[in-house]
């Protein structure tokens, strides 16, 4: 039986993606806690396994073994559907990421659109979680999640569109191929403003600190996942890390040349750039305090959206000028 059977390759691809997302979640939890510790000059997890490497496994076991509690007078369907809806788009979003051309489960020429549209489902799941919980903190978290995502998707899409204009394609493989091996040939260095806008919107889009207002543990207990116990919370958590990875992968492919590198181009360059961005996002969380909600919306509507619009306009003009010359 050949591996070319569409069904078999789809199943294998799906299994590989889910395994990667799960393993990645576990490793990133460890990295997050280690970075948090070192940023605050303490050691981080230490006792379970060498260098505390098995700590996330122990945590996962604890989460799995916990009782799943449904709050009284909550909407059972929305309440338990929300974590599933949060994780469901993850495999789809991993499909177009350019790990290896031969390993692509499905080759898509609109990969970027697919990722950005399905990532939007996450905010709907947060909204459902908040609505279904019958808890005022959860509801406030849900409202914040919607307002935040609706706002920040605009600069995110505009910044991504800038790179798409420069490459002339929505397929991440082709955007990658349009960039050269050296850093000054990457779109992020030709157009640093777009990279910056994309990164800031990405942090806001994945609800990470300093934009973690839907969770905001010091204001809203735990925001939209206040009522979730055990794996209900665990799935939200896993999905959050998967989205960080996806959005950092998109940034690496769009702006940092993806698999292009000065020596030995290949998927390791993509992985290295992706995880470097993940590390930056994690370090940002332990560096900056949370913004206030009005500051967040001001930042989006009064600064980033106009900047993204001007940037895309300037990019178009420069491209026209270069074409004419």
């Amino acid at each position: 039986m050949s591996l070319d059977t569409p069904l078999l390759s789809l199943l294998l691809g799906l299994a590989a993606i889910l395994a990667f997302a799960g393993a990645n979640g576990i490793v990133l939890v460890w990295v997050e806690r280690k970075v948090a510790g070192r940023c605050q000059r303490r050691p981080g997890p230490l006792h379970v396994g060498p260098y505390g490497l098995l700590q996330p496994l122990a945590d996962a076991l604890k989460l799995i073994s916990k009782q799943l509690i449904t709050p009284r007078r909550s909407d059972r369907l929305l309440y338990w559907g929300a974590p599933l809806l949060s994780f469901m788009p993850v495999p789809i979003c991993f499909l177009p990421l350019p790990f290896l051309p031969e390993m692509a489960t499905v080759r898509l020429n609109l990969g970027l659109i697919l990722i950005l549209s399905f990532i939007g489902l996450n905010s709907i799941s947060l909204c459902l979680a908040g609505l279904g919980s019958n808890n005022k903190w959860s509801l406030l978290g849900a409202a914040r999640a919607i307002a935040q995502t609706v706002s920040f998707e605009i600069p995110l899409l505009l910044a991504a569109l800038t790179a798409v204009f420069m490459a002339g394609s929505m397929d991440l493989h082709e955007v990658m191929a349009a960039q050269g091996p050296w850093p000054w040939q990457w779109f992020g260095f030709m157009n640093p403003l777009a990279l910056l806008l994309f990164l800031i919107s990405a942090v806001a889009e994945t609800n990470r600190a300093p934009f973690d207002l839907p969770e905001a543990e010091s204001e809203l207990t735990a925001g939209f996942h206040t009522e979730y116990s055990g794996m209900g919370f665990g799935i939200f958590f896993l999905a959050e890390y998967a989205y960080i990875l996806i959005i950092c992968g998109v940034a690496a492919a769009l702006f940092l040349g993806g698999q292009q590198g000065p020596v030995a181009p290949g998927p390791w360059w993509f992985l290295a750039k992706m995880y470097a961005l993940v590390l930056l996002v994690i370090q940002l969380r332990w560096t900056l305090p949370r913004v206030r909600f009005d500051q967040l919306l001001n930042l989006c509507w009064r600064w980033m959206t106009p900047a993204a619009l001007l940037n895309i306009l300037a990019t178009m003009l420069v491209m026209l000028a270069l074409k004419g010359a």
Partner: protein
Amino acid sequence: MFGAITKAYGALKSIAVGLGITGRAVFQEQSTVIYPMAEVKNLGHYRGHIELVGSDADPARPRCVACGQCMDMCPSGCITVETAMAPAELKTNAFIRAESIMGQLTPAAHFDVMIGEREPKRFVLDYSACSLCGQCVRNCPAGALRFSTHAYFLSRDRADFVLDLKERLAGQAEQARQAEQARQAEQARQASGSPQAEGGRTHE
């Protein structure tokens, strides 16, 4: 427009500065101590349960004159002092003045205690009732009480927190004596072990 650019530049710069601070912290020495593997060294500031202070002449014998003022002062009633007559050779002609707690509301009632006349037979602290207010330490006329640095003190049994501080002082004095002996022996060993190195130097 220009103002907006400088503002954005300032914001980005502050983010970069913050990332620099946390980035440097990653490679700096850690400021916490993992307790069972290591212990903090600044226990001098620690205020644990009270302990008796040894007298200048004999560190194993408390300075306490058994006036009982700490018992009076203690709001929790966790100190019990049993007195006995001190050995005759310790007796002096000096007195110290102790004030009764009565003095706070009524005219102070003083009583003078002769140093060396009496001594505590047992000095019992019920640490499980103590709130570490320090009234006993503050009001001891003989300066015979202080806070200990006994930080790692735990037990499953409440009875273990009833301490005979006099016994504890004797044990501490014995430990200090042995440590001092060991130190002197080590010094003597070093002095005899490397006479050349020591002799080669001149001290002026």
